[in-house]
């Protein structure tokens, strides 16, 4: 099945990406050039501010806490897809509810109304990651769009 193959490719790329940015602190002592190269590549998508990142072995990983949560949430969604075989679209307001905390957290922090914590960034980033990857997998899993229908409608389409 072509769609499943595409999702497997996305999963493989995501795994490589996660292994890449988490291995940077470990590679810093053994292979600093490789660690710097990975950090450079990953740094194109993230600010990499050290005090906003998670630490492994005393060194910051190559993306911030929020981005880490997004990618880990994506990994969880993909695992759920492989376990269940199909992911169904949720009502639109659920996606908004999952995305709004991250935007709110960002705006309030930039306006200096409050200083967010790493845990908050992890949670809000994770919720956004679930939304992003869930929508992507729904879009990628089929071209017949049966998954976009409600349960009853999808059944009628399958029958016809």
């Amino acid at each position, binding site marked *: 099945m072509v769609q499943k193959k595409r999702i497997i490719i996305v999963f493989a790329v995501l795994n490589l990406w996660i292994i890449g940015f988490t291995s940077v602190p470990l590679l810093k002592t053994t292979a600093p050039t490789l660690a710097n190269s990975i950090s450079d590549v990953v740094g*194109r998508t993230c600010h990499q501010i050290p005090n906003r990142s998670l630490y492994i072995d005393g060194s910051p990983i190559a993306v911030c806490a929020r981005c880490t949560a997004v990618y880990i949430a994506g990994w969880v969604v993909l695992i759920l897809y492989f376990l269940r075989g199909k992911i169904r679209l949720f009502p639109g307001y659920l996606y908004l509810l999952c995305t709004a905390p991250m935007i709110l957290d960002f705006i309030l922090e930039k306006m200096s109304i409050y200083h967010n914590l790493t845990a908050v960034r992890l949670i809000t980033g994770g919720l956004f990651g679930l939304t992003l990857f869930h929508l992507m997998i729904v879009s990628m899993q089929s071209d017949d769009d049966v998954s976009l229908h409600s349960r009853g409608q999808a059944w009628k389409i399958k029958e016809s």
Partner: protein
Amino acid sequence: MENQRIISAAIIGGITAAVLTTMPVINLINCLCCIGVIFGGAIGLFYYARLSPEPEVITQPTALTVGIVTGLFGAFFAVALEWIFYEMFGPWQIEFARDLAENMDDVPAYVEDILDELENQIASGFNWGSILLENLIILPVFCLVGAMIARVFINRNLIEKQ
């Protein structure tokens, strides 16, 4: 798929992505996992669907094509806008990063070194080649994500109308 429709949609989406990537202050939105670029890709596909003479289901290859072409257009627009802002404000991003670093409690010494190095590079002129190369990789990927997500909502709206 009609090429003219794809190009029109890609130009609109590309301009949106480029503005959200380069405009000072507004481009901070990309701290949220490049959400501005994702939005540009989504706008491209929404515009593509809107240009259709009658409502049609957007297939995966169409979303893929529109997303990637939007990103490619966006990359070139972003370099052009980056150059305009560089001419207007100079290396404002370095100044911004330096201000940010000064307001932090623990700033490792290497951050200062990186900022100095960047300042030296920028002083040697506008490095459009590396900016274009970077944009040509990042924008198509994130615009593709945006287009794939927009496809879900466009098709769902179409199904609901039917």
